[in-house]
C-alpha cells in the first residue's frame, strides 16, 4: 500500500511538470501581456516594467528561471496585485475556498446519494420522476442564476440570511454560497447514484441476498450500496478538486475572498504568474484527490487492492 502511494506520488512529478510547461507557453503565446492596458503606457515605462519583471529576457530563459523558482516554492510576484506574491495571494484566499468547498462537497455527496438511492428504489414511480426532474434542472441551471435567485429569496425577501461576505465565518454566511456551489454537483451525484444503484440491485448477488431472507435494509445498504458507490467515488476526485479550489462565479456573487476569482482575473489580465500559480494549485488538488480516490477504491473493492 505504502509502495503504491509512493509510486503514485513519484509519477505525479512528471505530470505536474508537463502541466506547468504547457500552461507556461500557452499563456505566453496568447496575444497581449500584463501591461497592455486600454491606454498604452509610454514606451520607456513599458521597457522599465519589462526589465523589472525580466520579461525582456528570451522566453526559454524566462521558463528556466520560472521553473527554478517554482521548485523552491517561489511562484513570483503578481503583475496586477503588485504588493503581493502569488504564493501570498493563494495562501490568503485558499482557506476560504477550501472551507466553503468542503461544505459544498459534503452537501452534494450526501444529498446526491440519498436522493439517487430513493429514486433507484422507487424506479419509474412518480417520486423517481419528480426527484430526477429536479436533478436535471440542477445540472442545467447555471450557478450565476441560482446564486442571485437564492439571494433574492432568502436574503432580500425573507431576510433570513446574509446576502454575501464572509462575516465572522459562521454558518449563516456559508449557507447560500454553499447551496449555489453544491447544487449542480448534487444533481450529478444523484443521477450517478440512481443509475448505479439500479444496476447494483439487478445483480446476481443481490438475488442471492434476497433468496437467503436478508432484510431489505441490509440488502440495500450492505450489499447494493457499497458496489454502487464505485462510480460515485470515481467522480469524487474531479468534483472535490473543482469545489475546493473555489468558483469564480459563486465567490464573486457572494463576495467571498477565496482563490476562485484569481484564475479568471489572472487569465483576463495576462497576469502570467498568477495564472501559473492557480494552474499548479488545481493540478496538485486533482492529483492528490485522484490518489485518495484510488486508495478509497481499494478499500471499497477488494478486487482492486493495491500491493
Amino acid at each position, binding site marked *: 500500500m505504502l509502495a503504491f502511494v509512493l509510486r503514485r506520488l513519484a509519477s505525479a512529478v512528471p505530470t505536474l511538470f508537463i502541466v506547468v510547461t504547457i500552461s507556461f507557453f500557452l499563456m505566453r503565446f496568447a496575444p497581449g501581456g500584463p501591461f497592455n492596458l486600454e491606454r498604452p503606457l509610454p514606451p520607456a515605462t513599458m521597457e522599465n516594467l519589462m526589465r523589472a519583471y525580466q520579461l525582456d529576457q528570451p522566453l526559454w530563459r524566462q521558463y528556466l528561471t520560472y521553473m527554478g523558482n517554482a521548485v523552491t516554492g517561489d511562484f513570483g510576484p503578481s503583475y496586477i496585485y503588485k504588493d503581493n506574491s502569488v504564493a501570498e495571494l493563494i495562501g490568503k484566499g485558499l482557506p476560504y475556498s477550501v472551507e466553503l468547498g468542503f461544505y459544498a462537497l459534503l452537501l452534494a455527496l450526501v444529498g446526491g446519494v440519498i436522493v439517487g438511492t430513493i429514486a433507484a428504489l422507487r424506479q419509474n414511480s412518480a417520486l423517481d420522476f419528480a426527484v430526477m426532474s429536479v436533478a436535471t434542472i440542477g445540472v442545467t441551471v447555471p450557478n450565476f442564476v441560482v446564486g442571485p435567485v437564492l439571494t433574492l429569496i432568502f436574503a432580500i425577501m425573507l431576510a433570513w440570511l446574509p446576502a454575501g461576505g464572509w462575516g465572522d465565518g459562521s454558518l449563516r454566511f456559508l449557507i447560500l454560497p454553499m447551496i449555489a456551489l453544491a447544487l449542480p454537483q448534487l444533481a450529478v451525484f444523484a443521477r450517478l447514484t440512481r443509475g448505479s444503484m439500479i444496476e447494483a440491485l439487478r445483480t*446476481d*448477488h443481490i438475488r*442471492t441476498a*434476497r*433468496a437467503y*431472507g436478508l432484510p*431489505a435494509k*441490509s440488502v440495500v445498504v450492505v450489499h447494493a450500496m457499497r*458496489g454502487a458507490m464505485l462510480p460515485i467515488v470515481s467522480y469524487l476526485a474531479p468534483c472535490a478538486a473543482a469545489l475546493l479550489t473555489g468558483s469564480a462565479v459563486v465567490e464573486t456573487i457572494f463576495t467571498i475572498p477565496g482563490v476562485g476569482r484569481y484564475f479568471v482575473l489572472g487569465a483576463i489580465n495576462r497576469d502570467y504568474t498568477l495564472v501559473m500559480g492557480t494552474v499548479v494549485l488545481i493540478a496538485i488538488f486533482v492529483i492528490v484527490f485522484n490518489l485518495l480516490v484510488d486508495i478509497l477504491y481499494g478499500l471499497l473493492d477488494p*478486487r482492486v487492492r493495491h500491493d
Partner: protein
Amino acid sequence: MAETQKTMEPILAVRDLKVSFTTPDGDVDAVKGISLDVRPGETLAVVGESGSGKSQTMMGIMGLLAANGRVSGSAKYRGQEMVGLPPKALNEIRGAKITMIFQEPMTSLDPLYPVGKQIAEVIVHHRGGTRKEARPRVLELLKLVGIPEPERRIDSYPHEMSGGQRQRVMIAMALANEPDILIADEPTTALDVTIQAQILKLLRDLQKRFDMAIVLITHDLGIVRHFAERVVVMRRGEIVEQGGTAGIFENPQADYTRMLIEAEPHGRKAAPPDDAPIILEGRNVVVDYKIDGGFLKQRASTFRAVDNVSISLREGQTIGVVGESGSGKSTLGRALLRLIASKGAYRFGRTDISGLDRTGMRPLRRSMQLVFQDPYGSLSPRQTVGEIITEGLYVHEPQLSRADRDKRAIAALKEVGLDPAARNRYPHEFSGGQRQRIAIARAMILKPQAVILDEPTSALDRSVQGQVIELLRDLQSRYGLSYVFISHDLSVVRAMSDYVVVMKDGKIVEEGPTDAIFSAPREDYTKTLIGAAYNIGP
C-alpha cells in the same frame, strides 16, 4: 439434524401456480398454472429448455421475480402459504427452510465481502448471535463442502476462488441453516465437466446426510438420469409430463419428452482418407501471454497458454479440440488463424503463413473463418443481419454491387435455414440458435475452406444444439469444409469429429481417432473427462 419422517406427505405443494410478466408488448405468461409436489428427502428434477418457465416457477415461489413479475396460485410449505406472504414472513422461510443455489457461481456471491462473512451473515440473520460466534460453524460448513484450507479460505474474497469453489461456498451457505428443501437452479451448467461431477456428488452426499429434498432445475438430461428420483418436464410454462425417472427415460409419454431424450447428438460422418491433403497446419505452436507490470513497476511475467502443440487439419476433416476452461483450446484456435501473436510454423494449404503480418494474411482470411461461442456478444447489435453477414464481402470481393451482395446474403441465409427476410432485421430479434445460424452464415458467405468453430453450440439448448450440429455437418459435406471444433462438451465433439485432441494446461494430453479416444482412452486425464461426462453420479 432434522428428524423428518419419510412420509409421502409433500413438504412443498404447488397448485395451479402462474407467473406472468408485464412488458411493453403486453403480459407474458411464463408459467401457466402448474401443480407439483416436493416430498421430504427426495430429488425432484424440473427439466425443460430455456423459456420453459422452470426457473421462474421457483423464483415465483421464493418471491424473487423481477419487478415486473407477478405470481398467483398456491405454494404451501408445510401447510404455510408462500404466495402473497409479506416479505418479513417470507424471509423466515427463505434462507432457512428453503434455500437456493444458482447457475452463476461467478456472480452469485457479493464480490466485496469475504465468503466467510457472507455465510455468517445468513446464519446470524436466521439464528441470532454475532458473526464471531458463527465463525466456527462457518468453518465447519466450508470443511463439509470440501473447501481446502478452510481456515485460510474463510477470509478469501469470491474473486480469489475458482468457479467450482464458489459453487461450494454457495452450497455451504445453502446448508448453513439445515434447510428442508434445496433448490438448485442449473447448479453445474457454468462449470467444467470434472467439476460438475464433483459438485453433483457433493450435493448427493450432503442430501443423504441432512435428509433434505433437492429440487434440481436443469436442461441436462444426463444429470437428471443419474441424479433425480422423479422428473417434471416443462415446456412453455406447462408441465408436459411427470413421473419416476426410470419410467420417463424408458417410456416417455409426451412427444416433447421423447424429442428431448433423442436430442442427444448422435451419428457421425465418415472420416476423410488418411492421405487427404493438409489444409491448415500449426507446428510447435507456442502462445505466451504477457502480464504487464505497469509504470514504475517491474514485475512483468508471462503465462504460457499454449505449449508446443502441433496440429494438422486435412481437407474434409473435423478435429475436435477438447479441454476444460483454461486448457488453451480457444487460444490454439486463434493462433492457427494467426489472429494472435504466437511462435511456431504455420501453413495454409501449400502456403507458409508463419511470417505473414496482418496485410499478408488478409487475402487468405476469407478461406479461414471463425465462429464464436457467444451468439449474443459476437453480433453487433447496431447492424442489421444483412450488414453483418455481408461485411466480409466488402473486403474480399469489393467488386460486388449492392444487388450482388444482397443476392449473396439471401443465399447464405437460406443455406443456414433462415428466412431471407431476416437480413433487414437486427440480431436482438432472434433467438440464440438463430443468432448462431447468422454467425455461421457470416462465415459461410465467404466460401471458406477451413473454419474454426469455438464452442459454437455451448450456449444453446440441447434440441437447438442438435439442429446446429446437423447444419454444420450438412455444410461440411456440401462444400468439403474442414473444421477445428473446439468444445468442452464431449457428446457434441463425439458427434462432430473424426479426430480428437485432448488439451490440458496448454499441452496435448492425448490425441487420436474419435472412436479410439472415446472407447479406449489411454491417459488418466482423458478417462476422468469422459467418465465425468458420461457417468455423472456414483
